[in-house]
């Protein structure tokens, strides 16, 4: 291990890790240019490197890109990556009231803390934790998605019925195109462009960003409040104090992120939402969530960054990628002649441990990098006049929606959903429940249909859905989340009235 640590600390690898973090952060900050794209675009450059150096670069890019999504989430209310959806919920309100710099610093510290927990889990607990990934079958995915959908009750901030309607609309949108199992063509109106379904990233950009654009145009005041006395520093001490006060939230969110990261296909968006929901449920100031709560940003960023290390666990131990960037990195591993599997930790441990230490170093490098980039991003957004900011953001949304599949139909879908999303928000139908339904719908449907078919073949559908330990644990967690949020509401109402 010591040799691997020294290798990771070599000047060449340090420079590569730094460049990877910077490149990843900047790509992740642009709405639509996701962590997957950042890794995919830059992976060919690593083929000529030493295997461990190439992996360090890819890990650093991935880490940086997941964090970079927080900038646009905080400063323009548009998650740069789906993993930053929950960050926008409190980050943007903070920025609106003039605390954008603090929000950016908190997101950086939360990301570093979460990233370290995920990487340490990869370093010390990879083989035993990977067994969790193998225990997840279709039914567990179904219940996990249902658990995710139950978070609508938390996200809808007291307007549960509006959240329910929004979630249902998201689920219906997720049904557009060919069914995930069976191939039924649904709600396409004969348009071949819709056969592939509603693309998630353009939909995400549209639902979050276009309403912000329209609001920026109709509101005469500045996009973000500018407080001259707060533009001088990072507010690092203040942020560290808030992090210390929120230490249990940090640890819990990082563990949630690591756990969700281990589950293939769950990803940073699910982790961020689950951690956000748990942070709100357990907070004494749960009413502040959605209005600029520090704990909301910390929970979201700590958890989504922890998914990076967590996702590498099944990727390296089992050869099952946890997220799309993991799949690309898995491909890079194969190109480098590295065979994943349990034997990787014994036969090629030097590469694995060098990579893991590289990931830890990249996470630590994210602190100065993220603070500096974040500070200038904040200053830039605050100082740009609307006549430049509105067209610039609109242009970046178009680039983001188009670049994923080089498809102009996706841009049209983005704009139409964005305009509808703005209209829906005017009557109380917020974007988050709709996005949650859109993201989790396919996971829930595939899990349900596969579980139904397998249960039918085994002659025990009830046992398939309600007889497996992990399923039961998730069901219990779902019920607990729903019930406890209701109990808290009832407990607080009399105090408020009094």
């Amino acid at each position: 291990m010591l040799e691997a640590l020294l290798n990771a600390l070599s000047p060449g690898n340090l420079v590569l890790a730094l460049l990877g973090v910077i490149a990843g952060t900047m790509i992740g900050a642009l709405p639509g240019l996701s962590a997957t794209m950042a890794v995919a675009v830059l992976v060919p450059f690593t083929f000529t490197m030493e295997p461990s150096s190439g992996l360090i670069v890819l890990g650093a890019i991935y880490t940086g890109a997941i964090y970079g999504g927080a900038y646009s989430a905080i400063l323009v209310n548009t998650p740069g990556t789906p993993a930053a959806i929950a960050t926008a919920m409190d980050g943007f309100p903070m920025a609106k009231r003039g605390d954008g710099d603090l929000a950016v610093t908190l997101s950086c510290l939360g990301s570093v803390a979460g990233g370290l927990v995920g990487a340490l889990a990869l370093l010390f607990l990879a083989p035993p934790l990977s067994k969790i990934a193998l225990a997840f079958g279709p039914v567990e995915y179904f219940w996990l998605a249902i658990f995710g959908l139950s978070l609508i009750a938390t996200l809808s901030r007291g307007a549960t019925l509006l959240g329910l309607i929004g979630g249902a609309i998201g689920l219906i949108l997720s049904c557009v195109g060919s069914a995930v199992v069976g191939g039924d063509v649904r709600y396409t109106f004969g348009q071949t462009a819709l056969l592939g379904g509603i693309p998630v990233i353009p939909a995400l950009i549209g639902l979050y960003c276009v309403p912000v654009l329209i609001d920026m145009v109709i509101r005469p005041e500045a996009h973000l409040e500018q407080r001259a006395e707060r533009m001088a520093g990072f507010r690092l001490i203040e942020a560290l104090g808030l992090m210390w006060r929120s230490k249990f939230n940090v640890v819990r969110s990082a563990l949630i992120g690591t756990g969700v990261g281990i589950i293939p296909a769950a990803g940073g968006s699910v982790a961020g939402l689950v951690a956000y929901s748990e942070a709100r449920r357990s907070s004494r100031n749960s009413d502040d969530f959605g209005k600029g709560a520090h704990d909301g940003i910390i929970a979201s960023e700590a958890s989504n960054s922890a998914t990076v290390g967590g996702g590498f666990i099944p990727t390296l131990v089992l050869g099952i990628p946890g997220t799309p960037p993991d799949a690309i990195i898995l491909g890079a591993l194969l190109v480098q002649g590295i065979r994943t599997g349990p034997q990787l930790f014994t036969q090629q441990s030097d590469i694995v441990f060098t990579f893991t230490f590289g990931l830890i170093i990249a996470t630590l490098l994210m602190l100065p990098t993220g603070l500096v980039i974040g500070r200038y991003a904040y200053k830039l957004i605050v100082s740009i006049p609307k006549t430049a900011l509105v067209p610039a953001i609109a242009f970046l949304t178009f680039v983001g929606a188009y670049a994923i599949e080089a498809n102009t139909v996706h841009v049209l879908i983005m704009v139409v959903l964005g305009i509808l999303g703005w209209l829906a928000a005017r009557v109380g139908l917020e974007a988050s429940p709709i996005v949650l339904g859109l993201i989790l719908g396919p996971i829930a449907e595939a899990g349900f249909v596969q579980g139904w078919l397998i249960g039918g073949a085994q002659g025990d559908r009830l046992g398939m859905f309600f007889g497996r330990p992990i399923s039961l644990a998730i069901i219990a967690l779902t019920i607990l989340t729903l019930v406890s949020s209701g109990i808290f509401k009832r407990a607080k109402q009399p105090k408020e009235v009094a």
Partner: protein
Amino acid sequence: MGPRVKPIIASVIGVAVGIFALSQTAPMSELGRVFPTTAGIIAIVGGVALAALTVLRPVPAASLSEPSDVPRVIATCAVLLGWALLLDPLGFIASSGLSIVALALIARREPMGLKSIAIHLAVGAGLVLLFAFLLSQVLNVSLP
């Protein structure tokens, strides 16, 4: 809008979307219609419950009115839609250039000097050309 109008509109949207979703399930297979049907029913039930609660509960206090500027909203939506539709016929650079200028004009609230206009145009053109180069040359994304 009165305090009850918004939730009533939201409930109408929920019921309408739910009915539409259910009306399209007839040609689907048994398993293929499970989720659309479930989601449709949730939307309808949610909409009806919201409408009932809105009508039955005491009239809530009127919330602060949101700013509204209908001509700017319509113009912004028109530019965004036009931009998306003109990407193919006009190409990435031309459609983006025109739309960026149009959006800057819509967002403008105070008169701009010649110097300011020149800076805006230069930055806009630089941004479009930079991303056109980045997408086409570095990322190998074919541009319309």
